[in-house]
């Protein structure tokens, strides 16, 4: 009996050390400028963390570093929360196929290659939390996956949720406008696009009514339907719709459908958001925007402007950014916020857009997005001002572990590229019209 107990104990310890190395000791970052996102910037700050969680954040002196803590001095550096990318295509996965325009049953988590080196690009950009989306070539291309970029051997190691069969592990990717207009069985017009979506949600409402009517009686429950089950989660506000939309009229269509069916929605890309900022604010719809160097490339993006973030912020909209990697490069994600500031967004809101605002849009703001006691010990350590072109991400930490370090040549190569650094091409989703 004792032997068995000892065995169990050892196994437990081994399992713990597998996910967290020497996390029993308190770690202290000392001397850096800390951007906690919630609260003022702290000069000469201290961040204490242990077992993957933040214990304390404050100015040197106001936070006491225990004498037995592992102290890491970072003078001249910047510490910000691990960056949250609300919309990315890293991991080489894809969602629904050409057989249907509506694929609520399809899960991107079943298709992600956790060894794909695009994950290294994200880490090199200081990104620790990612909403990996299936492409936007469908009205509904499938369930997205909220990932923490932990060292992993299987997708389950990266998920925020603990049980993909019962938990909400991501959002529902939807799209409107031209990306999802194709030959049958896809819609050919905008009105048809909306009609097909409405029909499906009406069906899901009916399915939900049947479940309610069954009052838990297994005999009376409707037959299991993977599509309907996912959509009931959407109708109940548990699974957020992550909606690709560019043109102002398409944005309003999304808001109209969200109101009709009462689902929670995050608007993505929002190229013409400035034209309907008031309507977006009234609908309290958060926006995850993309920042592109020049407009065009597709008809819906010809009015894309650096000012979108500033205009939405002024209208009172919650604004986050995304890479849409490979449309923009995960390694250079900080520049999205910098361009928004260039065009009038405030610096605090722009930095929030890289972190906490994104976390809110993924329902993960209790776990990530700011430096506060109890939150995950995810950090991006920078060489300088987050908005400066000359700044490099020097280290990326996930749940108390250093997972990327520019000082290590094996890590650094992913930050700069070079001969045979990337096995996978960055073009994937871009070429089949899936992304953006």
């Amino acid at each position, binding site marked *: 009996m004792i032997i068995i107990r000892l065995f169990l104990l050892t196994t437990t310890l081994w399992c713990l050390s597998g996910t967290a190395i020497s996390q029993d000791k308190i770690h202290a970052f000392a001397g850096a400028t800390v951007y906690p996102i919630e609260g003022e910037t702290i000069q000469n700050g201290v961040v204490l963390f242990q077992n993957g969680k933040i214990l304390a954040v404050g100015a040197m002196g106001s936070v006491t570093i225990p004498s037995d803590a592992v102290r890491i001095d970072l003078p001249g550096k910047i510490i910000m929360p691990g960056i949250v990318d609300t919309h990315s295509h890293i991991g080489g996965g894809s969602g629904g196929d050409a057989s249907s325009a509506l694929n609520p049953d399809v899960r991107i988590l079943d298709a992600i290659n956790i060894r794909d080196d695009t994950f290294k690009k994200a880490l090199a950009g200081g990104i620790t939390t990612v909403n990996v989306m299936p492409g936007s070539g469908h009205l509904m291309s499938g369930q997205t996956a909220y990932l923490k970029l932990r060292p992993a051997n299987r997708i389950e190691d990266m998920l925020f949720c603990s049980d993909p069969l019962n938990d909400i592990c991501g959002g529902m990717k939807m799209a409107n406008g031209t990306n999802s207009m194709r030959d049958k069985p896809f819609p050919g017009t905008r009105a048809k696009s909306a009609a097909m979506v409405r029909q499906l949600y009406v069906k899901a409402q009916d399915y939900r009514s049947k479940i309610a009517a069954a009052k838990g009686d297994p005999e009376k429950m409707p037959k299991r339907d993977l599509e309907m089950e996912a959509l009931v989660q959407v109708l109940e506000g548990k699974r957020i719709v992550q909606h690709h939309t560019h043109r102002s009229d398409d944005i309003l269509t999304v808001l109209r459908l969200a109101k009709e069916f009462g689902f929670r929605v995050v608007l993505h890309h929002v190229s013409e958001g400035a034209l309907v900022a008031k309507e977006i604010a009234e609908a309290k719809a958060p926006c995850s925007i993309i920042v*592109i*160097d*020049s*407009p*065009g*490339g*597709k*008809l819906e*993006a*010809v009015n894309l402007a650096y000012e979108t973030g500033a205009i939405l912020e002024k209208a009172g909209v919650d604004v986050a950014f995304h890479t849409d990697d*490979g*449309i923009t*490069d995960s390694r*250079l994600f900080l*520049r999205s916020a*910098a*361009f928004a*500031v*260039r065009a009038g967004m405030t610096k605090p809101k722009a930095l929030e857009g890289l972190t906490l605002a994104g976390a809110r849009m993924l329902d993960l703001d209790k776990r990530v997005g700011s430096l506060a006691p109890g939150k995950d010990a995810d950090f991006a350590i920078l060489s300088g001002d987050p*908005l*400066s*072109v*000359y*700044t*490099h991400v020097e280290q990326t930490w996930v749940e108390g572990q250093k997972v990327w370090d520019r000082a290590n040549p094996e890590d650094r190569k992913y*930050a*700069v*590229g*070079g*001969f*045979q*650094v*990337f096995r996978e*091409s*960055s*073009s994937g989703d*871009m070429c089949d019209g899936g992304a*953006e």
Partner: protein
Amino acid sequence: MSMRRFNPTLTLPLVRGRPGWGVLYAMLLFSSSLHAQLAIKGETVYTMVGTPITDGVVLIKGSKIDRVDRASAVTIPAGYKVMNAKVVTPGLIDARSVVGLSGMYNYAHDQGQLEKSDPMQPELRAIDAYNPREQLVEWLRNLGVTTLHTGHAPGALASGTTIVVKTVGNTVNEALIDSTGMVAFTLGESVSNNFKSPGTRSKAVAMMRTDFLKAKEYLNNRKNKDQEKRPATDLKMEMLARVLTGEVKALITAHQATEIMAALRLQKEFGFTMVLDGAAEAYLVLDEIKKSGVPVILHPTMMRHYGDARNISFETAAKLKQAGILFAIQGGYEGYVPKTRVVLYEAAVAAANGLSFNDALAAITLNPARILGLDKRIGSLEAGKDADVVLFDGDPFEYTSHVCGVVVNGNVVRETCK
């Protein structure tokens, strides 16, 4: 390609003899002189020749720079419009673009940068395809780009010619600096993706050599004393012959080291004047490029790593500099989003990855002017040069700085910050 070809009778065959050209030309000169009594004061003036001037001033008369000096040494004449900036640089030059042939909408009829009916069509002229009203031209101009080396895209063995234009003008003729900049050649996978043949690297090189040999023969036969025996004019052969004689440069896009070496071999065999374009894997063959004396128009720093360019690095610009190779940084060609890149931003990322500030700025000003053979006219702030000037409210490479003024040919084309 050179100053001499700016003579309208040589560059602008379409215009030659048209009544009223002289009048129009005079009007243009007159109208620019109306606006161009300018003094641009900068806390730092990067002339690109010698050390930057602290508290400098650029005096502009008509379409040309009159004087560049310390402000304390200059009395600004009465009646001059005075503009102030933190930082003043020469107008930026995009060393390799397709803007104006490739439009922002990205549907078939605004994409004129690549004709796919035949892999070898050097005779396709960029002047016949450039749209000076393309909105991306304005977009780039507002971000400080005053000169574009634009034209046919990579993707064919020879896709056509390039031109050099200022980012102003209602017609291509008004915009033009050089009507036949270079002929755009490509070696690489992209050619095989666009055409049934060449399907392999060696076939591509064989096809190029065959056509250059034909052009050599054509050149000789055209010189035949017996007029009867001279071949009929063949536009394709004419253009390749102009490359062979060195009149027009060969711009060869090659990304992988294998293709870069093949391009250098072709240059050696036929002796043409070559510019290496793209050059993603240049860092593998720096010595060979240096030895060849061929300048490089490097891919956009932030270009996506895929296809021929799968091995690109942010640090190649710094390595080219270290190796002593003359290079410029380009905006390049994009098939999707963003529809064009902005050389200012591409140079900025190079500056953040090992290239010095001055060298990054040179890569989008004086270096491209040299590679294009136009450094007597553009690329630096010096008396007698074109009055192309950009005003910034901070470090030009910082994302949060703004372009707050753009002057092209002495005309103020933008005075608000972007």
